[in-house]
């Protein structure tokens, strides 16, 4: 028995990450097959082993905070710039200074303060019923509060980070008061209580429970490429609409998957090399061809299905605002009854 426990103990110790030069440790909110593919490629190219823990961003932030300078993590990856802002506010990140990374990224997607580097981006846009809505009736996010959409709008709940980011962007652009009355308006236009996934919103349009939904284009891609013909049919019953595209308008809301370098990164050089690789043309092409995300590298084009939706003007808001105004956004959700 004693021997058994001793061996068990050795196992535990053996499994904890050791510091050596040939590795880089990631705390990641992303968990896609394409990520694994890219990490493997990086390992093959450089011999640097990529270790990953995948969990919720806020939990990982809590881990980083409590680990302090003992943290094994070099990089923190999220699917929401707001969470990187939060990490930076907690002094968990350091600036990333590297010319070739700089050159890999479209200017309007960069963190003006240099604390994080985007690796892909997604748009949170509208889909509408081909049968019951004309594209010409749609215009902006703001217009969704118009009473003409009474009982026609579908969206998931306010606990969803994508909705929180969208609301934060509205607060940043319109201010708290205007955003609150906007939220009041849109909530009274809901076709049903917020619930389900983005895909469920598209299905609800197909089933006639509502006419317009706010979704990430990403999930429409998943629905359209489904093996289930009924799902594809549902996906085909809607069209995509990029809001706020007018000349004097700010563009459609986007959010980035992005990487931050931790303040205490034990393998800083390897970490920088990984960021460099993930933003390179090679890796960016792999991202877009294996998911429905948009590339951050100006020399890479999105994949076929995504290109078909057309190009659009993106909201060039400083994405740190998505974290800065998060609390205001949540309070607006709660005060206007967006469940």
């Amino acid at each position, binding site marked *: 028995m004693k021997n058994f426990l001793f061996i068990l103990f050795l196992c535990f110790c053996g499994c904890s990450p050791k510091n050596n030069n040939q590795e880089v440790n990631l705390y990641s909110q992303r968990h896609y097959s394409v990520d694994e593919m890219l990490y493997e490629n990086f390992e093959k190219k450089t011999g640097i082993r990529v270790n990953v823990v995948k969990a919720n961003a806020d939990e990982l932030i809590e881990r980083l905070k409590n680990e*302090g300078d003992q943290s094994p993590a070099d990089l923190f990856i999220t699917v929401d710039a707001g969470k990187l802002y939060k990490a930076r506010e907690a002094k968990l990140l350091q600036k990333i200074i590297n010319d070739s990374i700089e050159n890999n990224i479209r200017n309007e997607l960069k963190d003006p303060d240099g604390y994080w580097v985007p690796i892909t981006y997604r748009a949170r846009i509208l889909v509408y019923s081909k049968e019951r809505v004309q594209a010409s009736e749609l215009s902006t996010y703001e217009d969704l509060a118009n009473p003409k959409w009474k009982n026609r709008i579908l969206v998931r709940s306010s*606990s969803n980070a994508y909705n929180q980011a969208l609301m934060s962007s509205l607060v940043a652009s319109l201010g708290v008061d205007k955003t609150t009355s906007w939220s009041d308006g849109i909530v009274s236009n809901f076709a049903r209580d917020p*619930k389900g996934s983005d895909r*469920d919103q598209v*299905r609800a349009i197909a089933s006639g429970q509502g006419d317009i939904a706010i979704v990430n284009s990403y999930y429409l891609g998943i629905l359209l490429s489904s093996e289930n013909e009924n799902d594809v049919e549902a996906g085909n019953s809607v069209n995509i609409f990029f809001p706020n595209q007018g000349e004097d308008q700010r563009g459609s809301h986007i959010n980035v998957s992005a990487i931050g370098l931790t303040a205490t990164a034990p393998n800083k050089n390897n970490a920088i090399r990984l960021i460099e690789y993930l933003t390179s043309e090679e890796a960016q092409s792999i991202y877009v061809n294996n998911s429905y995300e948009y590339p951050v590298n100006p020399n890479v084009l999105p994949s076929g299905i995504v290109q078909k939706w057309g190009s659009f003007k993106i909201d060039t808001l400083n994405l740190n605002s998505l974290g800065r105004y998060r609390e205001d956004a949540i309070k607006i959700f709660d005060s206007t009854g967006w469940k």
Partner: protein
Amino acid sequence: MEIKLFNLKLVNKRWVFPSLLLSIFLLLPIFALLLAFLDGGYSETFNYLIDTVLFDYSINTIYLVFITCTSSLIFGVFPAWVISNYSFFGRKFFDVVLYLPLAIPSYIMAFTYIEILSYTGPIQSFFRKYTPFPKDLLNYDFMQIEVLGFIMGLALFPYVYTSSRISFSLIGSSYINVSKNLGLSSFQLFYKIVLPLSRPAIFSGLFLVIMETLNEYGAVKYFGVNTFTSGIFRSWFSLGDVNGAIQLAIFLLIFVCLLFYLDKILVKNSKFYYSKNEDILKEGMNKSKKTTLFFLICSIPFILGFLVPLFFILGNVIFTLSETDFSKVFTLTLNSVFTSSASAIIIILIALFLLFVERISNKKLFFLGTVTSLGYALPGAVIGLGIIHLFSYYSLVGTFFVLFYAYIIRFLAVAKSPIKSSIEKQPHSFDETGKNLGLGPFKLLQYIHFPINKYALFAAFILVFVDVMKELPITLILRPFNFDTLATQTYEFAVEEMIPTSSIYSFLIILFSATMLLILKKMIDKQVYVSRG
């Protein structure tokens, strides 16, 4: 207190102290949360939530618990009653399979049912395409709190079934015979005699259902139903206030302590519970003409709670077979089986140790031992939070040591319940005889309690194995680098709305858990133990 402790030391101090230390060690994360709370002070978020949404969240919680309990009772108690008392076609089969819904994690059950019922799901598509029924016949928004409660009832009713089944089969024949002689109908017998007698047992099962409902997060979030636990995560994830989250968690903990206490009182007042009556089943049973009704009572929970989701998931497995990465499936299966069995062994040894020491010493001191069961009531992510506060700085988070430590805290209660009922049933004369023969506590454990509680230990092993296999939030946040399990992989695909791709992983969770539960049932048949006595 001091004096008592001193007296105790004289009895079995070499056993009592380690067990007290162990209990304290297991309570550390809760202490850490309390400390963090005291350190951070009263959170404004708490006031904010009270002013805005917390009332709604609490009402939702009560309503959801009510519906889930009601449906668990319906799906659990009636089958247990007819199986215990009547013979009908399929009785033996149902007695085995009604445990199986426990193999399906409730969030997978919820996702699966919404897929099945959705507009693009098999049922609605079939009606649209192949029948003359109006198109909108089943076109409803099924994501309602009532539906969620019903689905959770399907996932959780086996807790009620198990405890009432054991209780029903142990109720003395004299009760039943006397009642019949007094002219009570079967319904009256059930309603007036059996139900009141079995109330503590049924409540014990229901207690687990309530705990599981309170700390459920995945399914409630998907349904857009905000419960008290949603409030914890709103504070932490959305408002970025960890301290507010801790405060809410402590609030939840206090509420659960009250429930815990209620459970204790109910169980304490039920000495008749242990009546030995092996013959009852045959005597009380009669050939019934109501076979069809009984068959339905038993088949509905089994079909809805197990067969339907299983076949849907299996369908998806076959559908996505060509794109399945089998080497990955194999690795993750090994990982899941490894963590589940290793932690289950550790947990039952600890449970046995604590309960044994409790037996050989003064019980009153062991409120600590009881409190260690509280971990079961906390959402896994909150336990994870306590452990992060405790261990992060020592670089221990991300080791198997800490992962297993978290599992122990979360599931000790699960292991304790069968072992406790088994140990309590053993007469103290065994211990006396052992002592007279010169056995020390260790030999007593080795030669008497280990073998005579063997079945309970196996049962505890299986229950914990199944729970760890299904466990998600703790594994997600505390796992080592590059370590995935079937549960984490299922979640990662499901949350990205790739339900078909996730199905092979959820299928394997169900397969392993179901197999274990079937073995468990075999063992229960060999030696009826009283659940959560």
